[in-house]
């Protein structure tokens, strides 16, 4: 070895050039479904293990297996994309007065062990939630006073007039009394062998994958197309794209290339599932000044923010707290441009001028010459939010505002938000499927807490008697048209008073394959959210059709 050094260096350079050369060409991943999975079986990325599955089908626990949603059903399925209610175990409900809800229970429904389903099961389930408050994640017992049953109905008496509460109560999952009454401690019961009314029953369970089989005695068994569903415990995006999944709920970068491009008749639909917004702290200057809020709002290019955050797959959100286009019928038509606020830096600066801020040397300064400066708080690890915030930072920076970004861990972020200890914070609003709940949480002074105390809603600490009055009227309004009109007024408050800056819609990332099953919810047929958890999958699973071989 005469010049070992030189030769080694040469080899190193060659290796680097080779790898850089390889890097230049990209590799297209192809989907290759496992041929051992039959055509009547669906592969779904709905449930993630930790990384292994725990056999927990208790529908009231947060860590239940997702398929519990396919086994236990509510009285009414509420679709949060359209806001539509679908009668389910109840054929319907009515409110004789704003404090009473009467559910008519569907007849002919049986539990998967063959026992009949009765109103008693409903009352038992409600009682269970009362006895074990940890199960009452929706907090229905903060509205319910008493529950009565008859042969065909369940009557719920509310503590106070509250029409929208009916919907909340109706979405409670129902369990069989004849099994659960013998469970010694339901609060830790993992319900390993679930018995429900739903379209599927548990098949093989293993720690890395389980299957559910079609319930042959399901009350609308004729509508259920898939005989089996396989739910693996690990569903990385690479897995989803390469292994022939039929349904997944996940954001995928470059979805056209990576998911649709992978073949297998893949398509996607990303309807809005809520609004991602910036909450200004209204107890603090300068955010308590509407002119500043107007200035900030007009300085935003919401389209660019949404594109940064969701790679252009989600639409810009209107300043109305309404999800478009699927809730178009609820939108006040008098609001210009469907509530979309276009960027207008000139006008923004005019508003700032009214608030006493002028541009000097590229900086937006107050009378004393101090630059307008604040921090946006977002949660660490929420990467789409972070991307969006960075874009906001850039845009506001462009008109001379000094914007800093803080991204504490989710716990600390949540605490800051609830305690009102922030300048501006990213957050989600709306998307519950209920107009009342969407606005109540955002505007109601019931939730108002001083800075330093934890608020559960109304983090921006909005206090407006006009809004409170509208919300109170809403609770009493049984008539849908009346509700709609109240909704219009609430939208106008959000649009004009800017308690929050809507940015873009948070997506419901539905990835589906039409290779084996068709009839997925889509832009053309938006009958339900494409998400794989909660009760909306019931809508989807009873809507799909098998692809015919011929």
């Amino acid at each position, binding site marked *: 070895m005469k010049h070992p050094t030189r030769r080694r260096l040469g080899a190193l350079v060659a290796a680097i050039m080779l790898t850089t050369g390889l890097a230049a060409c990209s590799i297209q991943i192809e989907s290759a479904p496992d041929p051992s999975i039959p055509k009547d079986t669906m592969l779904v990325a709905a449930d993630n293990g930790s*990384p292994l599955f725990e056999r927990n089908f208790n529908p009231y626990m947060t860590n239940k297996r997702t398929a519990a949603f396919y086994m236990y059903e509510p009285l009414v399925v509420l679709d949060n994309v359209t806001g539509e209610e679908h009668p389910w175990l109840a054929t319907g409900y009515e409110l004789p007065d704003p404090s009473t809800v009467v559910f008519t229970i569907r007849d002919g429904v049986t539990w998967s062990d063959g026992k009949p389903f009765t109103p008693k099961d409903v009352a038992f389930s409600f009682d269970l939630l009362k006895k074990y408050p940890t199960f*009452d994640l929706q907090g229905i*017992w903060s509205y319910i006073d008493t529950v009565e049953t008859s042969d065909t109905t369940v009557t719920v008496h509310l503590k106070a007039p509250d029409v929208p509460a009916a919907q909340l109560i109706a979405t409670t999952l129902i369990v069989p009394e004849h099994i659960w009454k013998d469970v010694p401690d339901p609060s830790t019961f*993992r319900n390993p062998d679930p018995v429900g009314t739903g379209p599927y029953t548990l098949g093989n369970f293993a*720690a890395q994958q389980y299957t559910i089989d079609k319930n042959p005695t399901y009350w609308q068994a004729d509508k259920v197309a898939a005989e089996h569903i396989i739910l693996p415990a690990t569903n990385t995006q690479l897995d989803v794209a390469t292994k022939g999944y039929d349904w997944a709920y996940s954001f995928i970068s470059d979805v056209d290339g990576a998911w649709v491009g992978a073949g297998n008749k893949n398509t996607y639909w990303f309807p809005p599932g809520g609004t991602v917004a910036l909450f200004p702290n209204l107890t603090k200057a300068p955010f308590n000044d509407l002119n500043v809020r107007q200035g900030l709002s007009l300085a935003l290019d919401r389209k660019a923010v949404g594109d940064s955050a969701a790679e252009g797959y989600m639409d810009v959100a209107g300043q109305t707290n309404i999800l478009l286009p699927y809730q178009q019928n609820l939108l006040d038509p008098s609001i210009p441009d469907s509530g979309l606020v276009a960027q207008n830096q000139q006008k923004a600066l005019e508003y700032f001028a009214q608030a006493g801020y002028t541009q000097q040397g590229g900086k937006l300064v107050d009378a004393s010459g101090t630059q307008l400066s604040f921090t946006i708080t977002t949660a660490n690890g929420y990467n789409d939010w972070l991307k969006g915030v960075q874009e906001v930072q850039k845009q506001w920076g462009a008109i001379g505002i000094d914007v800093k970004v803080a991204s504490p861990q*989710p716990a600390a972020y949540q605490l800051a938000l*609830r305690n009102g200890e922030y300048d501006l914070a990213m957050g989600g609003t709306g998307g519950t499927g209920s107009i009342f709940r969407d606005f109540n949480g955002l505007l109601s002074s019931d939730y108002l807490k001083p800075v330093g105390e934890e608020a559960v809603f109304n983090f921006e600490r909005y206090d407006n008697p006009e809004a409170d009055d509208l919300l109170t009227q809403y609770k009493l309004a049984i008539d849908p048209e009346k509700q709609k009109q109240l909704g219009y007024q609430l939208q106008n408050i959000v649009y004009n008073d800017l308690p929050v800056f809507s940015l873009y819609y948070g997506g419901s990332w539905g990835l589906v394959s039409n290779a084996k099953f068709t009839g997925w919810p889509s832009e053309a047929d938006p009958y339900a959210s494409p998400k794989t958890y909660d009760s909306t999958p019931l809508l989807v699973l009873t809507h799909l059709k098998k692809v015919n071989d011929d």
Partner: protein
Amino acid sequence: MTSVTIAPGSADVSAAPRTSGSGGGRAWGYVARKAGLLLLTLWAAITLNFILPRLMPGSPADAALAKLAQNGPVSDATKAAIEAQLGVPTGNILEQYVAYLHQVITLDFGVSYTFYPQSVSELVSTALPYTLVLVGVVTIIAFVLGTLLGVLAAWKRGTWLDTLPTLAGSFASAFPYFWTALLLLFFAGYVGRLFPTSGAYGPTASPQFTIGFLGDAIYHAALPALTILITSLGGWILGMRNTMISTIGDDYVTFAEANGLKPRTVALRYAARNAILPNLTSFGLALGGVVGGSILVERVFGYPGIGYLLFNAVTNQDYPLMQALFLMITVSVLIANFLVDILYGVLDPRTRR
């Protein structure tokens, strides 16, 4: 004068002959000393584990709420429900500490915030075997293989048997664990489709002691194992090569050569046998690094071990799980170090003095 002369009252310990004493008693003394140190270190690690989370801001329930709030606002009732489910620690710091110590001793770490109602011990005990076997077996393979290659490199110093493993080893050991893992995952898993890309065994299998299952498990562990092997092998090669080069220069190696011992005997029983001792200590200390690396590896391969669980716990702010896992990892490494110390004692007669 022919008798062996020993300076009387010598303060020079090394020159004085040792009275035979009870070799067994000394050996037990050594073990007892190391065990005492182990217990003390365990206590310190356990206490550190107690203190750390209490130095930090934010309560566990807030973390859980933050997760829910991503989907929409959270009501008071929900918050109360979650807090009740989780069981937030109470009492003053001392009471908490006593309760905590009791928990540790009884291996009861409460329930996981993220995977309620699973208990932390349950989660840890399902995950631990995978990591122990994966990391344990691979590390031992890497150590043995690396040491042998290091011996060879030092013995054949200056030849390609030295240059190649040394350079390749130092380059590979500079690879970030997760990067190696990603490359292997992509090329051997997705493009080549040679190995499974996730999990510890086939999707429908369940753990049991059959040849079939073990084969399946080994097949699934192949890529994670290869990653750890690639990234840790270099360190052992270099470490052994360097100490071996030093021992080759020692007098007893020259003397062994002068006595005409076979080269293999000189290389293995004289040079390597002594060179391995300092490396053994490094082995114990490096275990922590390998376990750390395995966190990244398990994350990439979705391998259901401690590392993946820790990653889950951290991203979910699952404090009880996080604490228990950190403790488990630390305790495992401490015990492994203790075993290495004992092995050292067996291999080096000087420690028995």
